[in-house]
């Protein structure tokens, strides 16, 4: 079946048809434009394409909020000897998308950013984006360690936990992050069992029955 055709026919006759057909048309055009950029949406059903397009077109964070998210992201995941920083892996863009996709993150993020901004103003008389790196770390150190944080900082701890979650997950699901953590799968292969040197290191061995009966692709 022609899936695009079915999207259109699905919408004909519903009360909001004209609105949806318009957005659907754009989404189809966008998809063909996007596919030239490698965004393959063959695996999306009609309803998902509409939702994804809508989310991509919305803007949630203000420019100041995005600037703070970028600074915080690079404090949480800085460039090191192995890999780049959160902003190099486009984590702020991921966070912008995910809060639109998961509205339950919106108030904790927006409110947390504002909480941080107020702490910065009270403590250093300036916005978090305008204070020095050293001043920023002074604040972060008060909210980054849940067990030793002061009771008055608990809201900041909750915000930083969320920010740490989103930044870490955003980074380690990026191309740079997957390479960093050393995940070597997602390529066609034939499983012959745990490599011998690893078995040896762990003092483990396959049973004779496993060696005899389990599938073995070694041609040796």
């Amino acid at each position, binding site marked *: 079946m022609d899936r695009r055709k079915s999207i259109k026919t699905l919408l004909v006759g519903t009360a909001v048809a004209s609105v949806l057909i318009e957005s659907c048309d754009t989404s189809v055009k966008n998809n063909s434009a996007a596919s030239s950029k490698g965004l393959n949406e063959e695996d999306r059903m009609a309803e998902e394409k509409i939702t994804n397009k809508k989310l991509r077109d919305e803007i949630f964070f203000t420019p100041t909020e995005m600037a703070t998210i970028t600074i915080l992201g690079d404090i949480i995941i800085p460039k090191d000897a192995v890999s780049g920083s959160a902003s190099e892996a486009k984590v702020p863009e991921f966070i912008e998308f995910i809060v639109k996709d998961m509205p339950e993150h919106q108030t904790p993020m927006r409110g947390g950013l504002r909480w941080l901004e107020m702490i910065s103003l009270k403590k250093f008389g300036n916005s978090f984006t305008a204070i020095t790196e050293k001043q920023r770390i002074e604040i972060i150190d008060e909210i980054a360690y849940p067990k030793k944080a002061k009771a008055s900082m608990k809201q900041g701890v909750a915000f930083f936990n969320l920010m*740490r*979650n989103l930044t870490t997950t955003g980074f380690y699901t990026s191309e740079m992050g997957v390479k960093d953590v*050393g995940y070597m799968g997602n390529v066609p292969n034939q499983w012959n069992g745990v490599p011998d040197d690893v078995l040896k290191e762990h003092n483990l061995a396959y049973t004779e029955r496993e060696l005899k009966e389990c599938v073995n692709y070694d041609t040796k």
Partner: protein
Amino acid sequence: MGDTLQIKKQAKKYDVVIVGSGAGGGMSAYVLANAGLKVCLLEAGPDYDPATNSSQMKNPWESPRRGASTKFRPFGDFDGCYWGWEIDGEPYTHAPGTKWEWWRARMVGGRTNHWGRISLRFGPKDFKRKSIDGLGDDWPIGYEDVKPYYDKIDQLIGVFGSNEGLPNDPDGIFLPAPKPRLHELYIKKAAISGGVPVIPSRLSILTKQINKERGACFYCAQCGRSCKVYADFSSSSVLIKPAVATGNVDLITNAMAREVLTNKEGKATGISYVNKEDMQEYQVEGKVVILAASACESARLMLNSKSEQHPNGISNSSNVVGKYLHDSTGAAMGGVLPKLVGRKRYNEDGVGGMHVYSPWWLDNKKLDFPRGYHIEYWGGMSQPSYGFGFDMESQNGMFPINGKTKEAGGYGASLKEDVRYLFGAGVGMAGRGESIAVETNFCEIDPSVVDKYGIPVLRFNTKNSDYEIKQAKHMKETFREIMHNMGAVITWGDTDGPENDYGLANPGNIIHEAGTIRMGNDPKKSALNKWSQAHDCKNLFNVDGGQFVSQADKNITWTILALSMRTSEYIIDQLKKNNL
């Protein structure tokens, strides 16, 4: 569309009309079409072919939400199943104080596109539980009736495993199983030392090629996304595609069944459905009608099909349709295995699922609950997706990282070190057990709510009983012992107690719905006879989980497939004899 609603009757008369294209409907379509019968196959969702529509081999960054779940894909953005716990415009309701989580797939192949491929035969005891413990009912058939069909589908579809000679986990015709992964070797050692058996899992994944139409597994661990080379079983690729290729099947997608049509004699004449694309009403006729829409959707269809001859819903003089609804029990636990931290990297994806599992091993006479459970395992170095690296503050303070104990939480280069150090060190396990099917757990038609097509919806009324709760308690004790024997640190699932039924999943959550149209020899206590044929309407059949009397601690798909094949052969025979 004009404003006047018309019912369009299709001129073509079919031998068989099937509702639903999952395991049961797919197998019926396959068997009947290959026998030369003309089949109309109705599916409520769109067309789907894993070869073109699967998200297999995508990287996490190719999803804007990095594989996180949505209402469209509750098991994640790359999952192979369209819809799940909620469907826009298709509500369901609950009786006060009760819970049922209802998973509904809307696509060709249904939920077989994403299922775990755990393919377990019921054992001889599983068909005769009432005779053993006095609870529930015996099936009107036994293992010997189904065994020939299990044998056939093992060969037709392909399943790996090992023959162990266990009394209630029958041997099969298996492809060779993959060797255990590293964490599975640790689990095996720990479990066996505590008396819990661990054997190769039994999954319908092709470790060797079995025919020209399907490829062999290339070990990407992504069966949940559905397989582009058809190396695992999905009804869409393995049954529907070859069935349609016979030329004997008209597959109608986006067709939401409304009711079973009947004639003056009360015989089924076809199906009335809504075409979701043009929102028009259609009718299609057949000599035989097979319901395979899922246990609850098929029950809903029957209850919504009222006529003079069937005032209580079609073939429901027994009043059992919708009753005896049950799911598998489920509880889980997980943590970190310190032996695996800072481990050497290599590709250990393996197949999409565990390489080993534990079949039920105990004697209920010595336990305070009936029936049993099997244990599924996971862990190791898998593809990062949304949620990866979450809650580091509850993990990185618990272990020395590269020899140094740190304050929980943190940030910066130190946090990156923690993530690398802990990658691949996770282990987890879950029990899947047998609950008792009881009359008081049921779904019925909600008297006041309809879906967007005007079809009355289901209202659920199900509760776990002490039997299931005690089973979950036992699961947790077993898991704790295995984790302890392994030297693992439990990070979740260990704080459950009587206040939350020991972490027992809500009914429906394990997605093994069954029992709503059960078979039996007594037409007063069952809706179907032993051929899955309606007692009150001889040309109406049910081939999904609805027909189950009980569902063992075995995932039900393999038995759905076997029973559907058995029923389909019976239909061919009965049509030849003009008995339907």
